[in-house]
């Protein structure tokens, strides 16, 4: 049980690693999804652990929907960036600084 939670945090860490190390915008979106999967596990496990599986599942469903919306927006933005700027590398969206 507790290890399930640790695995969820591990997924979070992998997602964070991806957000740090990757340069492709679509891959960043994928890394974000990995993070969210960890959240999904954590929520369902928590519901299960307190004896309210239905509650955990219900939260999970909502979470999946919310993640999907974020993913869709992220992907759409990535597509637009590629179309406008000709690249998906993070370099092209790193002009705002200081």
């Amino acid at each position, binding site marked *: 049980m507790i290890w399930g939670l640790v695995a969820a945090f591990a997924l979070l860490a992998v997602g964070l690693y991806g*957000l740090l190390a*990757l*340069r492709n915008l679509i891959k960043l979106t994928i890394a974000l999804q990995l993070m969210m999967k960890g959240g999904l596990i954590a929520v369902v496990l928590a519901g299960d652990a307190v004896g309210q599986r239905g509650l955990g599942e219900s939260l999970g469903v909502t979470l999946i929907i919310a993640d999907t919306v974020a993913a869709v927006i992220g992907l759409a933005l990535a597509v637009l960036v590629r179309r406008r700027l000709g690249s998906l590398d*993070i370099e092209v969206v*790193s002009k*705002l600084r*200081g």
Partner: protein
Amino acid sequence: MFNWVVLSIAFPLAGVLLNLALSRRLREPWPGVLATIMVAGAGIAAALTAGALAAEPEGSVITLGSWIAVGDLHVTWALRVDLLSTLMMLVVTLVGLLIHVYSIGYMRGDARFTRFFIYLNLFVAAMLLLVTADNLVVMFVGWESVGLCSYLLIGFWFDKTKGEGWRNSTAARKAFIVNRVGDLGLLLALFMIFWTFKTLAIEEVLEQAAHTLELGAPIATAMALLLLLGVSGKSAQLPLFLWLPDAMAGPTPASALIHAATMVTAGVYLIIRMQALFVLAPAAQMTAAAVGAVTALFGASAALAQTDIKRVLAFSTISQLGFMVTAAGIGSTSAGLFHLMTHACFKSLLFLAAGSVIHALKHHGRQADFDAQDMRFMGGLWRRMPWTFITYWAGALALIGLPPFSGFFSKDEILASAYEYHPAIFILLFAAAFLTALYVARQGLLIFAGRPRSKAAVAAAESERVMIWPLLILALFSAVGGALNLPGNGLLAHWWEESGLPVHEAGFNPTVAALAAAVALAGVGLAWALYGRGKADVSHADPLEKHLGRLFPGIQQGWGLDALSVKAVVYPFNRLGVALSRFDLNGIGGADRGLAHVVGLSAQRLSKIQTGYLNWNIAIMIVGIATVLLLVALWRTG
């Protein structure tokens, strides 16, 4: 229904906002009309307040809400309605209304027409707040706001050509800075009052002062003297009078309203309001009387030698304020307030009449070396500007103090009080009264008598009606205003006693009155002898100069006090500034230390973190997560 007082302040404020909002929509003269209507509304509200006060003479305090509540300091937005504040409101709104009307004509065609009326309305609101405030902090807000309006209006024509604009903005700055010195005194007084009484509500302060402090207590003297410093800043008394003559750089209606009738009297109002404190400090009273009397004589003498039509009136204002400060200082408050009211009428009248003259000349004179404000270019205007002439003289006679004009009654009360208080004060004021008659008559003769001394004066024509009507109304008040407090059954004195304000009256002294009238006549006669046939020309020396010799240029420069202040204060200050800036360069900027440098450097370092890369952004966020988790871990274990 004392709540009218709130409306009275709200009206001009609404005028400000409306004019701001509509500044693009309204064309001349509508911003002026709007502003005028708002002041009229304020005036009606003030009159209704006065009506309510007649029913309940003891007045009331209207609390609008709490403002600052920190520790011991509780400041509420409270307005005080009593005889003093109501009379001040009536004066401010009445004179303000007439000057608004006049300004519609005077400012015609000015590029910043709307802005002028916004400033005027703002001023009226601030002044009303000042006189009705029931709390010294709120009063200070009004005090500062009127100062701000004054600053804005003195420098109103900051963009005039030929260096004049520069002079105007310099004058504005000078007024601001000199007033600052006075404000410092006032602020220190407020701190001291709060420190002593733990409150800043005027009523409580005065009550506590009366109960806890004994006569001549050093703390009371200190407070009163600090207040007096504030007074001498705002009311242009020695030694802080310096700004007022220069303040004439502003448009004439503003000079009339702010620098003659209302704002400059705020100091007198303050002394009257805080009378209970002054009563406890005889030394401060003596100082106030001495300062006032000396200022009165000084101003009158300086007015004698001016050639600029407005500077005469400026010095005259300084002198008359000296009379009022003396009266208020020695405790004859109702006399001081009476003179304040009559002076507000006749001095604003004189200013507006002078403005009418300037207006007439300005629009006709284009020749080189011509100055529309220089009286030596005038003369013979009585035929060309009959209404201005008549109304000017109504005001002039009031100022000179000839019966039955209003100034006679109010000035005599002051003289009578001074006579009782101290002979030296009386003699000073008496001499000032004589000089007053002389310089007013001189001015009147130079402007209107004899033959025109310039093309512009020949071509001058009467001003338009919108400017003449206010003159007529003010002339009426100047002529019959004395009825308010006739000797014997003084209406004002009666109200004063009824309202429970501290009072100390000398009553009518026939000898003094007769002497004063005689002396005034003598002054006028002397002026006629010297200037009767309009002999002062630019090419000739002033007739008075022949008699006074080298004294004349001296008094022309205000006894050299202005120059002295430059030498004694401004130069050293500049020197200090230069030294400081050098220190700043060497001590902070040049070497690699100092706060500014640290800030700059760390800002530079820090903004490097904002690389623009999303990866870095997230890295920084993760540092945050790790930090918080680490803190949690530390808290759990420790």
